[in-house]
């Protein structure tokens, strides 16, 4: 029983991280209908920036904030420089470009920061909390992960539902041409979508880094699982990213705990195959728009 509880807690924590990265994939998919294979390595890069600042004795939260801002800038630059020229080109082009970005960033990180494993200090204690006399696999840092991702999700919800910027973003995603005819500067909205996606990714990187031995490829598996989560939830649904993240996190935690941790990637593959054959649009995707 205690194994089950610990695996569940672990699954929820990991699921929230997958949800944050999946949210970034959803932002980009909604804005530009591109799957950004560079999402994980962009987050890796900003996390290295944070650890570099920490090495120089910069305040922890300042380094944390700097990584998020770096993500914002990086997302905007990548969209403007690499993605914008591909508009109207075959769908394979952005796939190749984002794969290239992934390889480029990991290579650059290796040569700038070194390829060896290193550690990233957690913001809060990673020792398991004690309830009564039982110690569970859930720490103060895990609480922080939950709070951070919930804040990210609520912020996204408020942005989309309650602000005029969010209204512009939804209009640009659903009907870009009509949005332009109504004066929405769709090009800028797409850049913003990429920037916000990279912030969500950076946050995930900062939350993952302390839990793993940290090297330039530390986000690779996270991206695979987040992609699984996004496909499960529906690539254009922020709610789907959250639910997909949690389901993927829990499923992989049980697979790892009961069957062996080396089977986790296979578990993700199984989820992908089931979703793609049973409900390819995902759980929460809106139906294809019908233009009358």
């Amino acid at each position, binding site marked *: 029983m205690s194994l089950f509880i610990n695996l569940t807690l672990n699954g929820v924590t990991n699921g929230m991280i997958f949800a944050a990265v999946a949210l970034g994939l959803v932002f980009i998919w909604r804005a530009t209908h591109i799957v950004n294979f560079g999402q994980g390595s962009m987050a890796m890069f900003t996390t290295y920036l944070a650890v570099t600042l920490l090495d120089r004795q910069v305040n922890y939260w300042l380094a944390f904030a700097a990584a998020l801002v770096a993500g914002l800038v990086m997302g905007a630059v990548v969209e403007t420089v690499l993605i914008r020229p591909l508009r109207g080109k075959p769908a394979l082009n952005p796939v190749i470009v984002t794969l290239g970005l992934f390889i480029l960033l990991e290579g650059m990180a290796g040569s700038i920061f070194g390829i060896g494993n290193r550690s990233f200090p957690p913001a809060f204690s990673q020792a398991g909390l004690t309830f009564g006399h039982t110690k569970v696999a859930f720490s103060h840092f895990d609480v922080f992960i939950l709070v951070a991702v919930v804040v990210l999700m609520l912020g996204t919800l408020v942005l989309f539902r309650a602000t*005029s910027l969010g*209204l*512009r973003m*939804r*209009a640009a995603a*659903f*009907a870009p*041409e*009509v*949005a*332009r*005819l*109504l*004066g*929405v*500067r*769709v090009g800028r909205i797409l850049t913003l979508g990429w920037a916000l996606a990279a912030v969500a990714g950076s946050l995930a990187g900062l939350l993952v880094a302390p839990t793993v031995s940290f090297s330039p490829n530390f986000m690779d598996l996270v991206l695979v699982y987040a992609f699984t989560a996004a496909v499960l939830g529906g690539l254009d649904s922020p709610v789907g990213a959250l639910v997909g993240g949690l389901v993927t996190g829990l499923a992989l935690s049980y697979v790892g705990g009961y069957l062996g941790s080396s089977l986790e990637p296979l578990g993700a593959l199984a989820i992908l195959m089931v979703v793609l054959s049973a409900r390819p649009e995902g759980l929460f995707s*809106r139906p294809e*728009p*019908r*233009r*009358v």
Partner: protein
Amino acid sequence: MLDVEDLSVSYGAVRALQGVTFQAQDGSVTAVLGANGAGKTTLLRTVSGLVKQRSGTVSYDGEKLTGLSVENIVRLGISHVPEGRGVIEELTVDENLRLGTLWQFNRGHRRSVLDEIYDLFPPLAERRSRMASTLSGGERQMLAIGRALSSKPKLLLLDEPSLGLAPMVTAQIMAMVQRLARETRLTVVLVEQNVRSALSIAEEAVVINLGRVVVADRAATVAADTQLRHHYLGF
């Protein structure tokens, strides 16, 4: 005044418009008529900047539009209601209307502009928080026109507002367009397949065939020319 001067547009090797020249006066409705594929929709899309011209110019009140981006043309007071209405189904009626006001008005002013639109179209007011996908064809057309008006345009480009509507609804929409043009000095360019109803409200008519202007004259003159009507307008 809208001034289209020697405008040519091509899609690859296909010439969609060739040397199109005409004017549309303030406070009046100019009907653009012609068969399917004559280039009517292309003409409107070029005015609003969605399509780039090969040569020629479009200007409004002396300001050159050709070369400007769609978003900047909108900001000069030009509203385009695209064919098929362009209502965003995934947004509510109110959100659709609000979108048209975002670039222009501050929050307080926005509300009063929207209230004016709801006064003009009472059925929309009753459905303001419903998704646009639940609206009927006529309501969608009201929403599309209301949204175009919410930015307080000087020039309104209407592409086939009667498409798929019952004759009664078409008549209502046409009457409203005519009233708007007269009362608010709005310049309207109306593209229509429904030639009779378009000529009934238009002061001027431009007939296009295979990308060229065949005739640009008073609507009454065009309506009275039996030969022209037979040849190009099919009645």
